[in-house]
């Protein structure tokens, strides 16, 4: 039942977003990945998730904000059953709470799932990509065997800008770049800049 629902939602998301897929790297995403992308629309993770091949999609969990997705029953059902989102509490800022968030993600990775994350932390205007938060670096260091795949989402902010509830159908493009590697001994800041540039470079 949820499988059929997921397929329907994926088809609907592809229709609304007219998404075409561009793989800059010839190698299709194999194995376990962390997809990290720019964030500027509520459609972002749904569209990224919907363009993945079906078997990969079933094993890929978006990371989303708990306060938003647990606001009502419908959203909670969609988040937990359909998308199998990893819901994290973004309210807390203490070190212990941050560690708890990261543990949730590590747990999902250890279960063999892939993740979709938006390292900017919040939706931007769509014109520029904001600085990346350090969670990505942490995950990369903790689980170095997982591929870090940069993804650029093009035009979704025009299809459904911040604060709107219905999408205006347009064409969008999801670009997958070659996986990023941690550099031995590189600093956290340098890695985050490099990761952001990897997404930026996929802009057409």
């Amino acid at each position: 039942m949820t499988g059929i629902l997921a397929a329907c939602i994926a088809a609907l998301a592809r229709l609304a977003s007219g998404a075409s897929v561009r793989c800059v790297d010839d190698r299709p995403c194999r194995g376990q990945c962390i997809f990290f992308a720019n964030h500027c629309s509520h459609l972002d993770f749904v569209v990224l998730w919907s363009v993945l091949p079906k078997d990969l999609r079933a094993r890929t969990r978006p990371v989303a904000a708990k306060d938003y997705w647990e606001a009502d029953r419908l959203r909670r059902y969609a988040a937990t059953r359909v998308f199998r989102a990893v819901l994290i509490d973004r309210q807390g800022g203490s070190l212990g709470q941050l560690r708890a968030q990261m543990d949730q993600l590590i747990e999902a990775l250890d279960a063999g799932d892939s993740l979709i994350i938006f390292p900017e932390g919040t939706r931007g205007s769509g014109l520029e990509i904001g600085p990346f938060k350090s969670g990505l670096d942490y995950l990369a260091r903790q689980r170095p065997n997982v591929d870090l795949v940069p993804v650029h989402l093009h035009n979704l902010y025009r299809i459904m800008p911040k604060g709107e509830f219905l999408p205006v159908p347009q064409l969008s493009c999801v670009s997958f770049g070659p996986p990023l590697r941690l550099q031995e001994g590189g600093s956290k800041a340098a890695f985050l800049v490099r990761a952001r540039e990897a997404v930026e470079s996929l802009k057409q």
Partner: protein
Amino acid sequence: MISDVLDRELLWLVGGVLGVLVVASIVGAILAGRVTSDSERATVANLNARIRAWWVMSVVSAIALLTRGVGSVLLFALTSFFALREFITLVPTRHGDHRTLLWVFFVVMPVQYWLVWSDWYGLFAIFIPVFAFLLLPTRNAIAGDTERFLERTATIQWALMICVYCVSYAPALLTLHIKGYENANGKLLLFLVIVVETSDVFQYVWGKLFGRHRIAPTVSPNKTWEGFLGGIATATLIGTGLWWVTPFTPWQAALMSLLITLMGFAGGLTMSAIKRDRGVKDFGTLIPGHGGVLDRIDSLCFAAPVFFHFTRYFFGP
């Protein structure tokens, strides 16, 4: 009720189109086996992609046509949807246009096709040029973003006129009341589409084979006088040869075909200028070998309304 004789003509027409495609596919396959250089290979691969896409488009159109009105109206409504989506993607709308665009997609466009379906000519002809024309800038003004206001509003209106209003004239042919041609209008629609598209195809073929002198090099390097004259002459001849499915005499069919092909050329040229302006080669990627939906129907957008009004004025009620 549709009489047997007329139905048979329609079947002949559809069968003829499919027959031409069979021949085209065979020619394409032979050419593919005979190419030597890389550039030839690319041209023939593109040609074959186009022929395959023609198969899909023809079969879909045939099914739509054989289901009478509903299928055709739905098919063109969908075509409008895809075309409008491609167009809006390319133009610089802003967040302030969002709600206006929701009106365009989810109210104006469906209402326009409902008007076609319900055969309400009086409102069909003015709904977008009068009512939507005034509604949209008002909604946009309420949104409050004045940056490049006129440019944005005008662009949205233009998109609506081309992708919805003009395209909706094609299925509106089904609603024309022509004496002695009752319930046969499906063939008139097919006549329009065949003439428009053969004109496109033969302009391409003549241009590829003999094209030397460019008509508007800054707009489209592929449009040549040789392609233009050869394509228009060929399509007009084909249209004339199809007079028996129309309410026209052979001479009238020739003039109508000429009108359709000239308008089609104007459409192709104008849309090329827009693509140049926006810095893209194609409007989209939905139809392999052709580009986007709008790349395929650019000629039809210009030909359909003019053909409709000429037919209505001279042969209508």
